[in-house]
């Protein structure tokens, strides 16, 4: 390594400059120490931004609301409540269901696109990748808002169909329904799914595909026996990357979901806002996290099993 060889040579030439301080010398000698030092600011921020808040979140979830303050006796009361009162379970289940459907749709729709760019685009690949991922980087709020404009009671679709004379009255099922939430989520997270899918497909050695063809597979058999199994890591990554953040989303359900499309995120937001029950909000956040972790684990195990059997 560049930085280690230099101080070492100086040590050999004469009295080392860093001789005054034992710590400095350790710093020069140990790559590990230098690595940690360089990462220290990042790690500090991440620790204060993730670990500490999570610990406090757990602690608060064990408190209870007491008037406008907290009763700091540690108790599992909130967890028991979240388990017993049907509203929490219902919203949690609905969140998982909506996110699950949105994730499945997104991955299914994005896979052919990623496949196309990985295998059939030869020039300006970079352009395609940027084009596909560009919308993801722009305001999530605005993209959701765009769907409100489209699906709204007097929105683009309804008013468009009406002025074309195809329908008499606006279609009411478009806005404020789980369907609206699913469509919006699938659209908003598409770019996030494309990248891992594309990377896993692009990584597949082309000679493996030729080998499959050479050994007698037509395009279909080749896809299911080689391409798909080898791109499974990308499918899994894409699923995680969409499923996890969308389960906690509250903007989309708030703007487009209506009462039937509300998700657990809306409930958490309410606890910290209008309801003003922070311990309950903390509890719900923790419960959400635990469920996500559990589901992710199951998902991972199942895909491993399936992947082993596909061939």
């Amino acid at each position, binding site marked *: *390594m*560049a*930085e280690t060889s230099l101080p070492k040579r100086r040590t050999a030439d004469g009295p080392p400059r860093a001789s005054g301080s034992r710590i400095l010398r350790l710093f020069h000698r140990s790559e*590990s120490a*230098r*690595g*940690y030092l*360089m*990462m220290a*600011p*990042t*790690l500090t*921020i*991440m620790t204060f*931004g*993730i670990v*500490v*808040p999570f610990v*406090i*979140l757990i602690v*608060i979830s064990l408190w209870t609301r007491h008037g406008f303050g907290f009763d700091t006796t540690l108790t599992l009361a909130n967890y028991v409540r979240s388990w017993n009162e049907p509203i929490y379970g219902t919203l949690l289940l609905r969140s998982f269901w909506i996110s699950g459907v949105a994730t499945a749709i997104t991955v299914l729709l994005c896979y*052919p696109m990623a496949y*196309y*760019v990985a*295998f*059939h685009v030869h020039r300006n690949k*970079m352009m395609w990748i940027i*084009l*596909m991922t*560009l*919308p993801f*980087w722009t*305001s*999530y709020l*605005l*993209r959701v*808002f*765009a769907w409100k*404009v*489209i699906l*709204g009671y*007097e*929105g683009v679709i*309804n008013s468009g169909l009406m*002025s074309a004379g195809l329908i008499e009255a606006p279609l009411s099922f478009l806005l404020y329904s789980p369907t609206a939430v699913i469509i919006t989520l699938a*659209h908003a997270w*598409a770019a996030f799914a494309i990248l891992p899918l594309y990377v896993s497909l692009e990584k597949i050695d*082309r000679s493996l*595909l*030729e080998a499959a*063809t050479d050994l007698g597979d037509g395009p279909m058999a080749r896809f299911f026996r080689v391409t798909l199994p080898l791109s499974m890591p990308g499918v899994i990554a894409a699923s995680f990357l969409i499923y*996890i*953040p969308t389960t*906690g*989303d509250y903007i989309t359900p708030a*703007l487009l979901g209506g009462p039937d499309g509300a998700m657990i995120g809306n409930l958490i937001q309410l606890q910290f806002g209008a309801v003003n029950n*922070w311990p309950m909000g*903390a509890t719900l*956040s923790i419960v*959400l996290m635990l469920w996500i972790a559990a589901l992710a684990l199951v998902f991972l195990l199942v895909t491993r099993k399936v992947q082993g059997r596909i061939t």
Partner: protein
Amino acid sequence: MSSYIKRPNRALQLYAVLFLIVLYVPVLFIPLFSFNDSIYVRFPLQGVTLKWYGELWTREPVWNALWNSVKVGLVVSVISTVLGVMAARAITRTRMRGKGALVTFIMMPLVIPGIIFGVALLVLLSRLGVPLSLYTVGLGHLIICLPFAVATLLPRFEGFDPSMEEASADLGENGWWTFWRVTFPMVMPGIVASLLLTFTISFDEFIMAFFLTGTDPTLPMYIWGQLRFPKEFPSVLAMAALILFVSFALVFVAQWIGRKGLEEQE
């Protein structure tokens, strides 16, 4: 050279084009209706006007919110990029124990719902008695921007040969000057890309800002507030169109610089 495998597939080509259209059209309705001379966002279009843009121009709160977002965005992008450079360098150039775990840790915000970060930080700050302000929004944004900065910069550091740094050391430069004369120019495109991306993320971020904003709203917070009033829709559309345009431009340039440089190296 795999001609057989690469034979063009018309169906797939058509699908790709449709995909891109569906990806972009919903977003393009925003600028379309922002020029519509009607308070209602619906077809048929009523004629072209710039009045919604004109109205924006005269609104004091819009300018304040914009300025707030720019301030937060600039600070967050610079800090997260500097920290990202240090982290990426440490990850690629030193043998550290537990490196994999550290990288996973830094990338965690990518796979945890933003709302949980938001409420966790809110709880921490309120326990510490820190008042909510643009600083707290910035802290929240820093946490979600860092993984993106590191992810953008890592390939740059991985992409260039450490022996170039060794050559510089061998030719007599110390670590500091080696960084400025060799490392920095080599990873420059990554740094620019990281700055632009993190700025855009912070500028557009809403989920954490919702929990962490004090009395000074950022632009997305301001827009969220306006969404309750349908009569404000047209001016929100105009604002959204401007933001989309700037975001698209920034991210496009960032991605182009970032990837272009990588391809040249290969």
